């Protein structure tokens, strides 16, 4: 994997582009899209030959700066994302913030993703320089290439090389994704001596150990096998995403819908926990569907955990402990 990135970047170097003493440094904020697509974008810039700095794991300083520099009405993950952008402000020349409007046919993302580059620029009072790639698959893939052209212009690289780098990065991303699903692939809960719990939620919530109050780690420490949407393949999730099988308007939602109903069918799944940031619009719908379906059809215990700015973990732990007591 890594070697192929290295060889690929060498190829570009040998073409003679972007060799300069002071290459601009690209910052990659570790929030939102990062948890699913970091490989794609990191590879993209590295193949083009630019140094990439990823922000640190979320910590209190990042959270505090995010809250200070973001508008008040957004959800916590968006605020935290701003904290990550802020932390890269003085370390990098450009901060990469993609504009995900639609990443599949008929599917749109959360409105905050659609306006993320603008939001960051406004909230940080234009003190940062942003590079963006537009992804609007439903409407027009041409928009993506236009934005790549703009990146090529800003960074002073050849447009054709940029397109090639993007395509190679996408291949790498898919390779890695397949590798992950091969390793983690869920079929059914096998180890019956251990309890099995599935943790659902947006990747930028459940895999960010600060936002999730280390939920996955805490469960594993109690000798519980943890399953997340990552353990399921795209097809299975899509197939089970009642009531939106085959078509979900909100991409982020159907991952969780599909996972919930796939895991609920497993008799050996002891419980399902949904971790949701306060005021998430997508989750408001998704969780309602999950709760109703669970009540009518499945007997799996379900816990909805809401997180916000709290750093006191007592209330969070109480709910998790009580849930584990309940599932026995």
């Amino acid at each position, binding site marked *: 994997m890594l070697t192929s990135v290295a060889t690929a970047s060498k190829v570009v170097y040998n073409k003679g582009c972007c060799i300069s003493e002071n290459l601009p440094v690209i910052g990659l904020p570790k929030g939102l899209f990062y948890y699913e697509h970091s490989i794609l974008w990191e590879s993209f810039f590295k193949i083009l030959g630019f140094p990439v700095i990823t922000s*640190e794991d979320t*910590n*209190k*300083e*990042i959270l505090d700066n995010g809250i200070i520099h973001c508008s008040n009405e957004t959800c916590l993950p968006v605020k935290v994302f701003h904290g990550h952008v802020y932390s890269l402000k003085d370390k990098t020349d450009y901060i990469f913030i993609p504009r995900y409007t639609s990443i599949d046919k008929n599917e749109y993302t959360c409105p905050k993703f659609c306006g993320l580059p603008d939001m960051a620029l406004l909230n940080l009072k234009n003190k940062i320089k942003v590079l963006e790639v537009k992804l609007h698959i439903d409407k027009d893939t041409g928009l993506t290439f236009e934005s790549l052209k703009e990146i090529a212009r800003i960074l002073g690289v050849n447009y054709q090389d940029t397109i090639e780098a993007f395509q190679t990065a996408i291949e790498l991303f898919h390779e890695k994704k397949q590798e992950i699903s091969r390793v983690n692939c869920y079929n059914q809960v096998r180890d019956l001596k251990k309890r099995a719990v599935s943790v659902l939620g947006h990747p930028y919530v459940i895999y960010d150990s*600060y936002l999730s109050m*280390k939920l996955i780690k805490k469960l594993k420490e109690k000798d519980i096998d943890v399953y997340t949407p990552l353990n399921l393949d795209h097809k299975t999730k899509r197939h089970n995403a009642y009531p939106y099988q085959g078509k979900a308007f909100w991409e982020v939602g159907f991952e969780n819908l599909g996972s919930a109903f796939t895991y609920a069918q497993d008799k050996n799944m002891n419980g399902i926990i949904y971790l949701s940031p*306060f005021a998430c619009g997508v989750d408001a719908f998704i969780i309602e569907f999950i*709760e*109703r379906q669970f*009540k009518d059809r499945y007997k799996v*215990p*379900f816990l*909805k955990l*809401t997180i*916000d700015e*709290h*750093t006191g973990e*007592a*209330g969070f*732990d*109480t*709910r998790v*402990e*009580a*849930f584990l*007591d*309940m599932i026995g």
Partner: protein
Amino acid sequence: MKEKGYFLGIDVGSVSTNLVITDEDDNMIERLYLKTSGHPINVLCNGMRIISEKFGKDIIVKAVGTTGSGRQLASVIVGADVVKNEITAHAVAAQSLVPGVNTILEIGGQDSKIIILKNGVVTDFAMNTVCAAGTGSFLDRQASRLEIPIEEFGGYALRSSSSVRIAGRCAVFAESDMIHKQQTGHNVEDIINGLCEALVRNYLNNLAKGKDIEEPVVFQGGVAANIGIVAAFERALDKKIIIPKHHAVMGAYGAALLAKEKISRNNTITNFYGFEAAKSNYKAKSWECHGCPNLCEVIEILSDSQTLARWGDRCGKWSQLTTAV
């Protein structure tokens, strides 16, 4: 003959700290309901002193259980055998006093919960989410704003003759709505009744949404003392609400039962430090750790300048230093 033993249950909550002593037959022989008043350690030590003065040396504590949001803190100070979350503790207590209970409504100082049981097993529960609107501390605040003792607050609601609608979603909205209604001339009884109905409506919409509330229904926690809220629940659910005699100390009672169960099952000796330990001088201090950008707020519990426990650090660097208490 086996010597007679007693069990101590402690519930350190946000508003009240409760201590309960039970005997081998699960009878509650002593209960203390003390206001936490922001000083959980002092109040807990004070409670321990009251019990030891009353019972002296006659009492052999065989096991101790702690619960409530201050359960870790209490456990460090008294030496607990069981440290249990308040949902499990409340469920155990209600089942013991009301066998066959199917629904438990619980409203405390900062938390409200609903617990659903089927055949004696907890099958579902919910707790209020990020905000504490509609719990005991909010009622306390409104009572003191209206200069009505909290004990009489519920009685006012029962004397209401016409209903006034108060916004119930958020405590801040509720308070401004109450003030607006009061300024337009509604009388205090009707406003208080409106508030009770708003809180019950909010509770049922938030916590009980989609859950089957089946009888017997038990209502416990400090707020169960408020007859206005009880009446509003009965009206909204159209069901009989059972209030256990010891409704305010159910968490502590549950903790005592859990402690007894654990000690008898494992046949072990208690970790209890004894009532004497409560006479030491406990102090808690906190500081911000600057080891990394997380800036954790570390808390240290000291007994006569000796460190008993530390917590609050995400990486475990401080808490691990004192795991051997």
